[in-house]
C-alpha cells in the first residue's frame, strides 16, 4: 500500500504554482523525510495530503487510494501542522477530551501515561507550556488517535536540540512499535537524516528525488579526479560537478560495481551531499522509487 500517491499534482495560489507536475508514491512502513528549501511546496503537499487543500491539477490519494479528507483518510491520518497549532486556551485534559470526542479511535490511557512520563501537567493550558512541551503534546494527541499515517509539518523547527531529540525519539518509538508510517517535513535535512529511511526531495514545486534512502545512496557515487578531464566524463549521467582547484568532484548516477575511469577515484556519497547536489541542479531528477520505470505501482503495492 502507498500511503501517498500523487500524479501530475499541481496547486496554484493566484498565478503562482506552489506545486507543479508532482508525481510520487510513498510506500507504507517508512519514516519519510520531505525535504526542500523554503518555498519548495512542502507545506502545500502536506496540506493536500491532509485534505486541507484541493489540487488545482492532477490528483492525490492517501492510504491506498482514498481521497484526502474522506472519512477513512481523516480516521487514518493524524496531521500535526506547522508550529503545533493547539487551542492555547484549553488545558491538556481539555485537548484530550476534544480530540477524543472528534476522533473515531482515541487511546486515552496511552495519552495520559505518555504525558505523565513527559512531565506535562494535564491541567495547564496549552499556551502556557514550553515550545517543546507543546510539540510533544501535539504529537501525543496525534499518536493517541492510533493513525496509520502520521504527518508532521516542520515538527522540530521551533525546538531546542534537547526537545528536538526527545520529539524524534517519541516519534520513532511510535513508528517502530505501532507500525505507523510517518511523513515529516523539514528544510534542514540533517534533522531527519538519522530517522528517515525514505526521502522525498522537493524543489521549486516539483519532486526532484524520491526513493528509499539506501537505494538513493546505492545508485550514486562521487568520482574525484583531475579538473581538466571533468568535462570529458560521459560514461554515466553527471548530476553535479564541484571543482576544487585542480580536482573535480563529480556526482554521478552509477552503481557501486560500475567501472571507474583511469585516473579517477570513486567514493560513496552521503545523504546530505546528495540532496545538496540535486538542489543545486534543478534540471536533474532521481526517482528510483515506484514512480520509475520497472514494476508498476500495483505490483509494488503487493
Amino acid at each position: 500500500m502507498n500511503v501517498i500517491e500523487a500524479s501530475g499534482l499541481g496547486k496554484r495560489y493566484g498565478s503562482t504554482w506552489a506545486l507543479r507536475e508532482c508525481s510520487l508514491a510513498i510506500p507504507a512502513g517508512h519514516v519519510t523525510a520531505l525535504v526542500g528549501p523554503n518555498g519548495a511546496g512542502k507545506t502545500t503537499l502536506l496540506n493536500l495530503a491532509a485534505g486541507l487543500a484541493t489540487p488545482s491539477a492532477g490528483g492525490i490519494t492517501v492510504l491506498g487510494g482514498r481521497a484526502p479528507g474522506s472519512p477513512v483518510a481523516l480516521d487514518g491520518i493524524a496531521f500535526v501542522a506547522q508550529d503545533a497549532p493547539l487551542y492555547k486556551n484549553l488545558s491538556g485534559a481539555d485537548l484530550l477530551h476534544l480530540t477524543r470526542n472528534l476522533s473515531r479511535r482515541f487511546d486515552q490511557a496511552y495519552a495520559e501515561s505518555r504525558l505523565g512520563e513527559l512531565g506535562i501537567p494535564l491541567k495547564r493550558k496549552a499556551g502556557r507550556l514550553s515550545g517543546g512541551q507543546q510539540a510533544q503534546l501535539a504529537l501525543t494527541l496525534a499518536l493517541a488517535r492510533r493513525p496509520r499515517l502520521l504527518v508532521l509539518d516542520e515538527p522540530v523547527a521551533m525546538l531546542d536540540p534537547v526537545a528536538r531529540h526527545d520529539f524524534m525519539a517519541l516519534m520513532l518509538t511510535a513508528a517502530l512499535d505501532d507500525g505507523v508510517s510517518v511523513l515529516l517535513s523539514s528544510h534542514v535535512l540533517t534533522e531527519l537524516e538519522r530517522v528517515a529511511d525514505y526521502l522525498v526531495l522537493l524543489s521549486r514545486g516539483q519532486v526532484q528525488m524520491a526513493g528509499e534512502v539506501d537505494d538513493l545512496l546505492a545508485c550514486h557515487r562521487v568520482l574525484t579526479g583531475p579538473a581538466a578531464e571533468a568535462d570529458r566524463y560521459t560514461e554515466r549521467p553527471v548530476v553535479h560537478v564541484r571543482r576544487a582547484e585542480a580536482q573535480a568532484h563529480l556526482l554521478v548516477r552509477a552503481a557501486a560495481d560500475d567501472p571507474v575511469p583511469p585516473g579517477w577515484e570513486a567514493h560513496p556519497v552521503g545523504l546530505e551531499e546528495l540532496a545538496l547536489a540535486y538542489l543545486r541542479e534543478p534540471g536533474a531528477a532521481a526517482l528510483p522509487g515506484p514512480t520509475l520505470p520497472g514494476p508498476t505501482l500495483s505490483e509494488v503495492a503487493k
Partner: protein
Amino acid sequence: MTALRVPARPEQDASPRPLPWRRMAWVTWRQHRIALAGVAALLGGPALYLWLTGLQVHRDWTAAVACHPASSGACGALVGYYIHDWPPAQIISVVLQAAPALIGAFVGAPVLAREMETGTFRYAWTLGFGRWRWTLAKLVSLAVVVAAAAGAFSVLLSWYYQPFLAGNPGFGGDPVPLDATVFDLRGVAFAAWTLAAFAIGALAGMLIRRVVPAIAATLAVYAGLAVAAGVFLREHYMTPLLIRNLNPPGFAWILSQWWTKGGKPVGQSALAQFLQQEAPQLAGDGKGGGIPQSPTVNQYLAQHGYAQWTSYQPGSRFWPFQWIEGGWLLALSVLLIAATVWLVRRRAA
C-alpha cells in the same frame, strides 16, 4: 516522470459511519462558553431589571384600569402617576437594539475567524469528525442557543410592554407596536434578528478570517441591514391602508399624510397660500412653509373642498408583520449559514 501510472482516483468503497453529532456538544460548549456567558450577562441584566420593574408596572396598571369611575380626578391622578413613573423602557430599548449586533459580532464572528487566525482549523478539520459537519454542528447549535435566549428575552419584554399597548391609547405617549423602537424587540423579531446577526458574523468570520475585522464587519453589515429594514422595507410588508382623515384609529403606524382637492394632490405651500388669501387669521406665521396643525384649520380646509389623507399600517397588523420579518430573517440566516458551511467545505488552505 510523465507517465501517469499512479491511479490517483479515490476508491468508491463504503465509508465508515460518520461520528455521532452529539460528540460536538461538549466541544462547542467548551470552546464558546465564555461567549455564551457574555450573552447571558448581556440579556440577563436587562431581564432582571425588566422583571423587577415590570411587576410594579403591572400592579400600577391594574390599579389604574380598575379605578372607577374612570373620569374622576382620583383615577386621572392614578393614570398620570402610572404614565410618569413608568415611562416605557426607552433607554433600555435603545440598548437592546444593539444586543443582536453584539451577539452576532462577539459570538458569531469568532467561531471561524479565530480558528483561521490562530491556525487551529488545521487541527480541528483534520480530526475524524470532518470539517463541514464540525462547522454545521457548531453554527446550528450556537444559532439555536442565542436565538432561544433572545426569544425568551423578548417574551419578557412583551410582558413588560403589555400595559403600554393594552388598548388604552388615551394614556398617550406610548410606543406604537409597529414603531421601529419596539417592533424588533418583541414577538419573534428579536430572536430572528439575533439569529441573522449570528449568521452574518459566522459568514464574515469565514470570509475575513481575522477576528477583529470580522467583528467590525458584522457590526457594520448588521446596522446597515437593520436600518434598511426599518426605514425602507418594513412599511411595504403589506399594502398600507388609506383613510380620509389625519387621525387613523389607535396604534396606527402613520406612513404619510397629504391633502387633495378634486382628486389631485395639493402641496403644503399651496395650502399655506390658500390660507393666507382666504383666512389669514388661520394661516399662522407661515414659518416652515406649511400650515398649522390644528383642528380648526383642518375643519376650514375640509369645508373648502380639501380632503385629508393618511396612509398607515394598523396596529392590528403587528403579528402578520412579525411573521413576515421573522420569516425572511430566518430564510436569510439559513442561507448565510449554508453559505458558510459551503465555503468551509470547498476552502483551499
